[in-house]
């Protein structure tokens, strides 16, 4: 410094350049991780659309169970079982995995089928007990029929019931079914309002709460974690 021996004012320049290289290399993974959670939020935002009770099919004469399955006793004494329209509007197109084959007996509350969409899964429980007479082979060829005509050609099982009157006593029928569907729609909105903040704390969900419309097939676009929550909180209680 006093000019009598060697002193380099740029001594640390080399080290500084190395640190800059390290910084730039780290900046890329840093910003990728920072933005990861945003992906789930975007999926929620994209999912805002229109799903109102007015587009649901709710035929009369069919018993609706709380777990969104229906049962209809035909004159021959065989009951048709299926999934209700509201659930299918939530999930969109799904693949089915029948848990029972003709000749099996099934108890009310047992898993009768699994719905699959893109690796995400929902368990569906049987509304009645009895003996499985038939499974709907048409659905394995043409799964789209399930969503098109859930109460008609989209039936899942034909069952000879053990205790039809006792088990269907608490189920919804006709107008009460329509009322119940509306309530379920609202309960779904509430479910979303509770679930979304878990994945993105600063999300704005006011649009849902004050009557914003839900889009069709909303669940199909949400990730597997939300399906698990849907199973636990919405379907099972």
């Amino acid at each position: 410094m006093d000019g009598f021996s060697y002193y380099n004012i740029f001594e640390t320049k080399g080290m500084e350049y190395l640190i800059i290289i390290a910084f730039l290399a780290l900046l890329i993974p840093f910003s990728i991780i920072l933005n990861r959670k945003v992906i789930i939020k975007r999926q929620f935002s994209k999912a805002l659309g229109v799903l109102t009770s007015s587009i649901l099919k709710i035929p009369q004469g069919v018993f609706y169970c709380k777990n969104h399955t229906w049962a209809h006793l035909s004159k021959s004494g065989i009951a048709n079982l299926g999934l209700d329209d509201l659930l299918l509007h939530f999930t969109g197109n799904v693949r089915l995995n029948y848990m029972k084959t003709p000749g099996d007996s099934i108890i009310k509350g047992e898993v009768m089928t699994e719905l699959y969409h893109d690796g995400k899964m929902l368990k569906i429980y049987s509304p009645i007990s009895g003996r499985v007479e038939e499974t709907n082979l048409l659905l394995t060829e043409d799964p789209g029929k399930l969503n098109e005509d859930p109460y008609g050609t989209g039936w899942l099982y034909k069952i000879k019931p053990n205790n039809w009157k006792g088990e269907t006593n608490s189920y919804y029928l006709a107008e009460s079914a329509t009322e119940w569907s509306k309530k379920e729609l609202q309960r779904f909105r509430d479910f979303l309002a509770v679930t979304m903040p878990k994945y993105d704390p600063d999300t704005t969900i006011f649009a849902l709460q004050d009557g914003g419309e839900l889009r069709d097939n909303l669940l199909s676009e949400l990730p597997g974690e939300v399906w698990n929550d849907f199973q636990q909180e919405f379907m099972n209680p």
Partner: protein
Amino acid sequence: MSINRRGFFKVLGLTGAALVIGREMKAAPGGNGDIDFRGVLYDSARCKGCRGCEYDCAEANGLPLPGPAKDIPPIRHTSETKRTVVNEYKTSKGTVFIKMQCMHCSEPACASACLTQAMHKTKAGPVIWRGEKCMGCRYCMISCPFDIPKFEYHSSNPKIQKCDMCYNRLKTGEIPACVANCPNDALFYGTRRQLIKEARKRIVENPKLYVDYLYGEHEAGGTCWMYLSPVPFKELGMKEIQKASYPALTKGFLYSVPSIFVLFPALLLGIHQATKKDNQTPEE
């Protein structure tokens, strides 16, 4: 999760590498030295203009010898064939001679400018040119305030020519060629501290003989080749040079480079994501 682990190991590896390299760099030339600079004191009052130093320099460095004295013009510049010249000036105190060559600055502009470190300030003091590194960009010539480095424009393998204080001789314990054979003791080789002491002594002992100024003590942040003169240095063609070092002029710029390298990418990335988000948020 895997990116986190990868990032962590990356930091670990880089830190380790940086520490190793950093330790090496500290050991290599770049840290503060504890060797005193060597330099030369030239006393213009004692110089009789025999130009013996020019002959010795040319001989020691394989350059063409200067011609007969009558053919030499009184004032010349150093060139790619003359590493040192002795100029003759008619001044208020009669004829005064002055020897011009590289000043071997303590903080040389040329060494700071050289991007391959071909111009190199040795720990011992002399500033040398290392041809195996030089790419001939001539940036040292732009930066040198004394205009010392000279380029061989007419060679296909051009060198930079300048005084290197006979560095090769110094390494074997000898003194520079010009100092060794000066008949009038006008050149004095020693550490910079010794030179300054000696110069002050001469000024105090002969106040009428010398101008009370040691040229090179502070010029360009201090040089290792210093001058005593009987007349003001302006009369001898010695330029008025700033007292601060020349590399300090680029300090402002070079010090701000890392900051920009860190701030700009972060800022640009942020703006990019801010403007991108605006386009994608749906109307609510």
